[in-house]
């Protein structure tokens, strides 16, 4: 379970308007069918995560219950109900990386940042997720920090890598 962080929802009017605009565009593009996942993806793009008020907005826009939105939002790994860190760390725990020791890398990051997978540090700086195969198995074990990719990572290098973002 992700650690709940007490961040009050501070969405802006502009964000809400943008969401409504994007949803209207989606509806047109999809011919009104199968909108939910794409809507949640758009909302997460705008807000960074999917807190209850945002789920409610989508429920209202699509004319479905909040429970249905929540059901879909919690089903897929891509969606997060909690905010992510400024730097999102991903460690590939796909098989190729795992047999090459990415489990140790992951553990080292947990120990260093004192968080678990799915969690965010208290200062909202780093969050950590175990990712599925990101497909550069030649570089195994692989970790990513936002868009930066680090290949052939060893646990010793973790502190140095994290220091770059501090």
């Amino acid at each position: 379970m992700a650690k709940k962080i007490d961040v009050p929802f501070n969405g802006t009017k502009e964000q809400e308007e943008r969401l409504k605009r994007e949803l209207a565009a989606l509806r047109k593009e999809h011919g009104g069918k199968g909108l939910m996942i794409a809507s949640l993806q758009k909302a997460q793009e705008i807000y960074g995560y999917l807190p209850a008020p945002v789920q409610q907005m989508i429920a209202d826009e699509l004319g479905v219950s909040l429970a249905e939105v929540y059901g879909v939002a919690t089903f897929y790994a891509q969606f997060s109900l909690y905010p992510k860190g400024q730097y999102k760390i991903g460690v590939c725990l796909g098989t190729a990386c795992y047999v090459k020791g990415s489990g140790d890398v992951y553990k080292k990051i947990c120990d260093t940042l004192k968080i678990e997978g799915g969690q965010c540090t208290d200062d909202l700086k780093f969050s950590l997720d175990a990712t599925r195969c990101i497909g550069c198995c030649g570089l195994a074990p692989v970790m990513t920090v936002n868009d930066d990719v680090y290949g052939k990572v060893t646990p010793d290098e973790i502190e140095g890598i994290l220091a770059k973002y501090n």
Partner: protein
Amino acid sequence: MFRSHILVCGGTGCTSGNSMKVYDALVDRIRKEGLENEVHVTKTGCFGLCALGPIMIVYPEGAFYSQVKVEDVDEIINEHIIKGRIVTRLLYKETVGEDGGIKALNDTNFYKKQHRVALRNCGVINPEKIEEYIAYDGYEALGKVLTEMTPQDVIDVISKSGLRGRGGAGFPTGRKWQFAKNSPGNKKYVCCNADEGDPGAFMDRSILEGDPHAVIEAMAIAAYAIGADQGYIYVRAEYPIAVQRLTIAIRQAREYGLLGKNIFNSGFNFDLDIRLGAGAFVCGEETALMTSIEGHRGEPRPRPPFPAVKGLFGKPTILNNVETYANVPQIILKGADWFASMGTEKSRGTKVFALGGKIHNTGLVEIPMGTTMREIIYDIGGGCPNGKKFKAAQTGGPSGGCIPAHLIDTPIDYDNLIAIGSMMGSGGLIVMDEDNCMVDIAKFFLEFTVDESCGKCTACRIGTKRLYEMLCKVTDGTATMEDLDKMEELCHYIKENSLCGLGQTAPNPVLSTLHYFRDEYEAHVRDKRCPAGVCKKLLRYQIVADKCKGCTLCARNCPVGAISGTVKEPHVIDASKCIKCGVCMEKCKFGAIIKA
């Protein structure tokens, strides 16, 4: 006319190694030298040899440069492009012949035994230019189908070729299409499964990144065969490059009139849209994928009704995997007999494997069905690095099993893999050496399926969790021999009582390792020992007295004060205090600490 072509790999593997910066630097230098009209730099899809990325090839010489860095660009331009002298130090060693000249890539061990059908354009054409695809016979198959063949002709050719689904189960593609064609209804759908979720498999992504038009063309052919006018490609949102290239490819195909209304003036209409998956392994299952496209939780539905009768939005639908589609245009152009001449009796054609794990040449290989595991791992893959002994190969991802070393000469096809307790799956092939613990591997896959079980069936939702807990007991050293039998029983229970492929195959990694590596399980249970030295709770760290110099470094770094001893005297570890964190072993400069 260009006098030289530089092909830079733009696949995910090489891009992660900064190949796009190399590309930019090349383009930049060539412009500065005023050579834009003489030297052409292109981004291509994956060459397959990901272990050596970033990769580039310079033609006409065919110089295959590997592990190219931005700093190397000046040398390549100055020496190779301007002076015509090949930069030998960057050449892939296998391509340097005995006389010092360049050997053709197809003569190297990695490529020699490969036969590229699905990957034929990957690493050859620029995937962002439809003209390059067309120049390589692209959309010719669609033209042939629409102008010369009836829908039934198309299905007959595909059936006769013996093509089977490349996504896992190996269902005959032609038969699937026939069912959908026979289903009544004026609205039908064609879907493509690009939700590649097997950890360690990345061939579908490479095809989408390297040759997206092949998939689009094949979907149009399938649509014509079954009478559909709309298609969806369901692709993982985690594959940004693939999504971007697909988007470009669809737009270009529309501009050329190869998607849309009245294609080739034949009266046939077909259009295609992308749907982004949101990260759920179960969505690789066909009914779950369709539920997900409809916007719901991706839970599988019972079959029958099969999707060919009642699929997406309740209409007849076919769903094929990316690699399956990538074969289709070639089959139409070259004929069913050509395709059927490759492979084994029941598994025709070629299969792409993603080689990964403890192997020299990680990357993508495409080989005729029936090639043995030994040829793939040793001849193509170059064996295990660091002189380690090959222990097992895992195929089929979380649904498959581990193939032990003594079965390495098994010819790989759908039926042989099932017979030895694994399955083809999407084609991930992970090599393990003596340092991998098979119980730990089984636990790894179970952790994955526990996480990814959609929760609909009790046997899968709770069963995989209980199975995982039992495996934890084994790796913790608290399991009994009776637990091993219980585990086996539970495995069969889960297989028999789950609705979809996920649950039905989830116990395979446990069953196959229990079958082939039972001694390893027993060592954990009976002797409280992990033979590979992986399971932390069963490890005992020891100091070899002869090697210990008494430098005290380990004692000072031990977080729990478990190491004692006087300066310049051998130290000892108190096993009752040791938390097995491994810091001492990491810190020791003399290699005096070992795992026993």
